[in-house]
């Protein structure tokens, strides 16, 4: 039998209130939607609440959001439990999300996972005792070109392997996160060995030459349009 029981309940805070700053942000989100449709702001508000509460979303925060948007609490629970980006239990300071979907897996995500497990002595889903790291496995992060990916809080660390992951974890532990992006220094999604195509200067399409000949430049055309 497989159970989706999410384990023992966590200690919930009694109260949650948005900081004045976040309340302002929340109101700005609500104002985007017409009156009576303010429930549409539930996702950004839950995200605000989660960020304010240190990366997880307690029940009290869901209730605050529900009251603010005048929607039934159960509708907020539904949203919060549907999206995996909302954490319903406390997480470490650094939330490590390893992508193990096919492209990352082909490019060695197993090594990234193994490095995390070895270094932090936790399993997938676990949090280190010092509360610094939580390790989770996620589906495609949409950055397959630079696989494998490890998302740390909001940032993507790309092109990782075992040792690089361990170095990254050391830096995080020391509180000095390295710049995010490719760990092998490639720019954007460029091929690892530098350019392999589009090496020559691009030639303009024939119609552009015709336009130039007739005296109409690209700028004029766009101005006219």
């Amino acid at each position, binding site marked *: 039998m497989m159970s989706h029981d999410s384990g023992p309940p966590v200690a919930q805070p009694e109260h949650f209130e948005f900081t004045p700053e976040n309340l302002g942000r929340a109101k700005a989100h609500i104002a985007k939607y017409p009156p009576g449709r303010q429930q549409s702001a539930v996702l950004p508000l839950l995200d605000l609440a989660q960020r304010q509460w240190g990366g997880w979303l307690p029940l009290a925060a869901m209730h605050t959001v529900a009251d603010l948007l005048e929607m039934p609490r159960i509708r907020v629970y539904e949203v919060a*439990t549907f999206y995996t980006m909302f954490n319903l239990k406390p997480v470490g300071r650094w939330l490590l999300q390893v992508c193990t979907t096919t492209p990352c897996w082909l490019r060695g995500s197993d090594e990234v996972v193994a490095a995390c497990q070895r270094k932090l002595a936790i399993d997938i889903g676990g949090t280190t005792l010092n509360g610094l790291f939580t390790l989770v496995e996620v589906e495609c992060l949409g950055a397959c070109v630079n696989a494998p990916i490890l998302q740390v809080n909001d940032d993507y660390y790309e092109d990782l392997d075992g040792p690089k992951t361990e170095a990254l974890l050391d830096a995080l532990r020391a509180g000095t996160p390295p710049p995010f992006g490719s760990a092998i220094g490639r720019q954007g999604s460029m091929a690892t060995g530098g350019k392999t195509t589009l090496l020559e200067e691009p030639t303009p399409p024939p119609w552009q030459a015709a336009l130039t000949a007739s005296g109409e430049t690209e700028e004029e055309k766009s101005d006219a349009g």
Partner: protein
Amino acid sequence: MPKVTIDGTELEVAPGTTILQACQQAGVEIPHFCYHERLQIAGNCRMCLVEVERSPKPVASCAMPVADGNVILTQSEKARKARHGVMEMLLLNHPLDCPICDQGGECDLQDQAMAYGFDRGRFDEGKRAVRDKDFGPLVATSMNRCIHCTRCIRFLNEIAGVEELGATGRGEAMEITTYVERALGSELSANIVDLCPVGALTSKPYAFVARPWELRKTESVDVLDAVGSNIRIDARGDQVLRVLPRLNEDVNEEWLSDKSRFAVDGLVHRRLDRPYIRRGGRLVEVEWSEALDLVADRMKATPPERIAAIAGDLCDAETMFAAKELLQGLGAQSLDCRQDGARLDSACRAGYLFNTTIAGIERADACLLIGTNPRREAALVNARLRKRYLMGGFRVAAIGPELNLTYPAEMLGDGGDALNALVEGNHPCGEILRNAKAPMLILGQGALRRPDGDRVLGAARALAEACGMIRDDWNGFNVLHVAAARVGGLELGFVPGPGGSGTAAILAGCKSGATELLYLLGADECDLGNTGGAFVIYQGHHGDRGAARADVILPGAAYTEKDASWVNTEGRVQPGRRATFPPGEAREDWTILRALSGALGRTLPYDSLPELRARMRAAHPGFAHIDAIVPAAWGPFGAAGPVDPAPFTYPVDDYYRTDPISRASPTMAKCSQLFGGHPDAAPRTGTHG
């Protein structure tokens, strides 16, 4: 009008009809789980797949409107295979526990698996396990069986108006839950048991009691409120095991309130199963003849003006008719069926009926509630008001203390002063009522049972006339009753005759000695605390307040144990039928009165129920119209004068314990304890902040 061809039959249907509805019109049944005609379309079970020509894939017929020229094949190989596939997938995680499942024998999944099920499973993975939920004392859960049709969620959101149930998680981790464990806060919650197409939600009080094929089914009518919901009583042997709603579009649609459904376990507790006489302060069991002789002797010895009778809330029309004939034959005029003291006038029918009718609420566009909390007093009238609210363009205002209905209502004030202002035209809300096309008002017993109730009635009448509620094609004046017996009693004229006294005067008379003999027909809700030395006869079925005070107890039959008629708040006469026999020596109520009349030497002229009914119909022709509304003529009623500005109070404090049956019910006791009277008053606890 789109033309469609269904399995070779051409058919013309209304625009916007779904394929499934078109198939039903053509007489073709489409299997389905999530679709329900009274709920929004979800389209998530996929069981209703059909083949539509020129459509690349099978189509979920419940969610697809027909297009002109559609050629629909419901029995093709493609459609059949698609349903087989869906059934196999629904059964992946469904446990094979039919032998221990309470739904067995009346399970949609079981039935449809007979037609579309595969004879073996091809799923090698583990089945998912889901923790059972606590939905309170009425609904038992077995969430492994859930197929996520979401009917329960939609019912509570839409019909009950209590958004507490939802689907959390997603995919295989989806669960139907309140998320924070708590009982469902609705007085209609148990309807989700009927809606559940599988055994995930079952009845908790009825758990493991019986199989459907063992039950004797009797179509009857509910009497625990004044709605007159149509019910089916399921009994085995001499015990009523459960009550289910029966379809009546004009009354309860297909819903039933929780009290009406679950109070029946009170029928086996605290029953009066043989006659008693009080001797030396103690009630002693006696034979019928002895009890009847004693009552007859006392009646003969008492001057008729000192004899009085009060009819209770569950009393049937035949009993009240026989009692009235018997007592008026003796010359007694102090009869009353209004044991709460409501100042209703039996002379004008329109003055005590729900004239708009329950179904007629759907045609109204503004509603004023006066001293009534329909959610507690008539849950299904409230559901109808909510249905009207959801259609849009419906404004509700209320006069009375704070209400928690399931739709927004503008609170105009606590009591009489707001009503006075409305009648005088000084209230801004009056404009809304005057400008509405079909305005209605609902006058509750909370406003009528006060000493100035007749002036409240008069004020409401004046308001109805001033706001155009009374027209040839529309009557927006409504009285909402809380007792199933009340309208019947008023129709029969079970009210004080010339020189007779009403309930308050009768009870005061008991104290002062003006009333020497008091006949209680199941009357338990009037104040019997100080009835002095009066000789009290209690005819009823439960050892409740009336029996505690009685000098003689004549054991009668509960509503499930007699063939009798009740008149609901609309004035609709509906027959109840006997499902079981009364316990022990107890007898059907009219036969007790017939026997007493014999002992008195004034034998009533009927020996059978048809004879009694014929006589009753001759005297009161309205009773010949079964399950029909006879519109009431408008006339004068109520009294003129300003209403006392004091706040109104609502008549039902504890929804779960309003009558002798529900007070004897262990299930209702649990609910009452849990909800503190009603789900709308439930204290939010624990994680509810």
